[in-house]
């Protein structure tokens, strides 16, 4: 995805694409919230609404050979990585055609064909995996392939964060660490969980280039990530970007959201990455209302088709319960 290549998209095309991406995630997840109310989706459901600019902006900088690891708030990342809305919805419905065969659910979306390594629900535990994947790329002469690892700011209090950054820096592996700082680790605010709230400074102490970006501005996210990915591909070793963002919804569907002021939430909603970009592009006459409306329609159509397919999909037979525990037992069964 070299932006200097002759067939590179124009700036306007990139802007349109990013807007459509964010709309796609938003529509999909708003429908998920409804389906949770209808008890079609169960377990934990963590919505990304408000944070779409990060997944959209980062993922549009990646190519097929890159790898992505995400957290349990990963519907948007999976969609952006190319996992189909239908297989994600089927997974959340617990159906066998889900992207994890009904074994993972909302928190554990996986897709090998997309190099999408989950869907990881132990905070920070996937960071060392990213280092290992980077080491494999380095060793197997896939040095232009980048591993992108998303995590929340809550992960930065975990030991595995520190171990992973130290290893990444020592071994100079091609990994982009993407911290989605939405200010709350579940209900615990950044100030009460981090002695150093300048997260880029904290990461930089591992001798890793690190900086902060406005995660509500998808164009800024895209610009910063383009630069970082190019530098990593060129052999620059690991990098860290903090995306300052905010989730508009509670942590999960069980969260009564007692720890945040309504005023704070409202203030952040004024910076909604979708409405902000829409207004900007309309104001600059870089898009028409019709095109924007088409984006919303297309997203709704995609989501509704996914819901219909998930409703109709067969469940995994119980006699397959013990499949996929070890690789050999499924070969034998």
């Amino acid at each position, binding site marked *: 995805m070299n932006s200097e290549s002759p067939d590179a998209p124009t700036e306007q095309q990139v802007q349109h694409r990013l807007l459509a991406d964010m709309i796609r995630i938003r529509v999909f997840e708003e429908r998920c919230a409804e389906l949770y109310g209808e008890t079609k989706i169960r377990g934990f459901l963590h919505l990304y609404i408000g944070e779409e600019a990060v997944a959209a902006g980062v993922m549009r900088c990646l190519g097929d050979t890159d*790898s992505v690891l995400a957290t349990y708030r990963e519907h948007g990342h999976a969609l952006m990585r190319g996992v189909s809305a239908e297989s994600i919805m089927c997974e959340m419905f617990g159906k066998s055609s889900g992207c994890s065969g009904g074994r*993972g659910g909302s928190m554990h979306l996986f897709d090998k064909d997309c190099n999408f390594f989950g869907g990881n629900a132990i905070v920070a535990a996937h960071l*060392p*995996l990213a280092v*290992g994947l980077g080491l494999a*790329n380095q060793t*197997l002469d896939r040095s232009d392939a980048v591993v992108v690892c998303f995590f929340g700011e809550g992960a930065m209090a975990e030991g595995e964060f520190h171990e992973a950054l130290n290893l990444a820096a020592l071994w100079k592996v091609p990994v982009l660490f993407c911290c989605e700082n939405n200010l709350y680790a579940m209900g615990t605010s950044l100030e009460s969980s981090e002695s150093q709230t300048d997260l880029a400074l904290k990461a930089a102490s591992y001798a890793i280039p690190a900086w902060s970006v406005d995660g509500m501005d998808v164009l800024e996210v895209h610009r910063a990530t383009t630069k970082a990915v190019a530098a990593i591909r060129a052999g620059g070793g690991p990098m860290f970007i903090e995306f300052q963002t905010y989730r508009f919804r509670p942590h999960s569907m069980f969260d009564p959201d007692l720890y945040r002021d309504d005023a704070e939430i409202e203030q952040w909603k004024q910076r909604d990455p979708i409405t902000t970009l829409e207004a900007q592009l309309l104001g600059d006459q870089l898009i028409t209302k019709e095109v924007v409306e088409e984006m919303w329609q297309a997203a709704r159509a995609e989501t509704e088709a996914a819901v219909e397919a998930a409703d109709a999909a067969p469940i995994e037979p119980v006699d397959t319960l013990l499949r*996929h525990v070890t690789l050999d037992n499924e070969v034998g069964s």
Partner: protein
Amino acid sequence: MSATDAGNMPAMTYREAMREALREALAADDRVFIMGEDVADYGGPYAVTKGLHEEFGRDRVRNTPLSEAGFVGAGIGAALGGLRPIVEIMTVNFSLLALDQLVNTAATLHHMSGGQFNVPLVVRITTGAGRQLAAQHSHSLEGWFAHVPGLKVIAPATPEDARWMLPTALADPNPVIIFEHSVLYNESGPVGPATGPIDITKAAIRRAGTELTIVASAGMVPKALAAAEQVAKAGVSAEVIDLRSLRPLDVSTLTQSVQRTNRALVLDEGWRTGGLNAEVAATLAESCFWSLDAPIVRLAGSEVPIPYAKHLEDAAIPQVDDIVAAAINLVRPEQ
């Protein structure tokens, strides 16, 4: 193997046998690499990897910082990315710092991803007491790992197994944890140069007998064999089974033996409560109840953190004399 075959084989220590297995693995496949704390210049805490970095370079015999969760996780990632990592953890007590990676990630990824991903990772962990290293370097926690679906857990107890279980473990598409008991490293035994990869799911009958089955693993195996030798002098014929595979358990070999001998003595250096010994005993109770001439007996670690002082450490884990007494009492309770 027969005694005659064994006599013709070169003797090797357990340490040398494991090193030879590692050397062969590194030479045979460029994707294989070793990583862990002090595996290079220092030669490994138990000198197992000594010299390998000179032969294969520091990328393939890779020192790590003291970051058990970090480098075990990196091993999982490297395995996902197409490499064949062999991760060394200095002692089972330290492996608890990586328990998250082993239990929450290595063991679950295949299932959670609906079978899309698998983790061909080998983790070598030193286990066991006997070196006066006290309560943070001496425990036998392999039973905890054997509790977890998605992992394979093996415990080679002879130099021959140390040499030839590793290639099988490396070829396995699943995470395999190899437990190496620290007192075994200096033990010598015959190692067949051409034995070839050993099935890592099967137990081995180390000594045939007719009156009781002694079930042992890892550091308990030489003790069980010594005890069997002693009770033979008292006219008691003991069969000794080396579990080798702690997960899955080779239930068939265990059951067939106890159905023949009608008595079972289950040894475990780990704690008795909730230990692997309990799993073995319960399994035998289920499968052999109608064949048993006496209740199954367990001889396991005392319910105490392993103490430092030699006499206390010895008292905390089953010794040959304890096994002899338990075996004779089981077969000849009147004596």
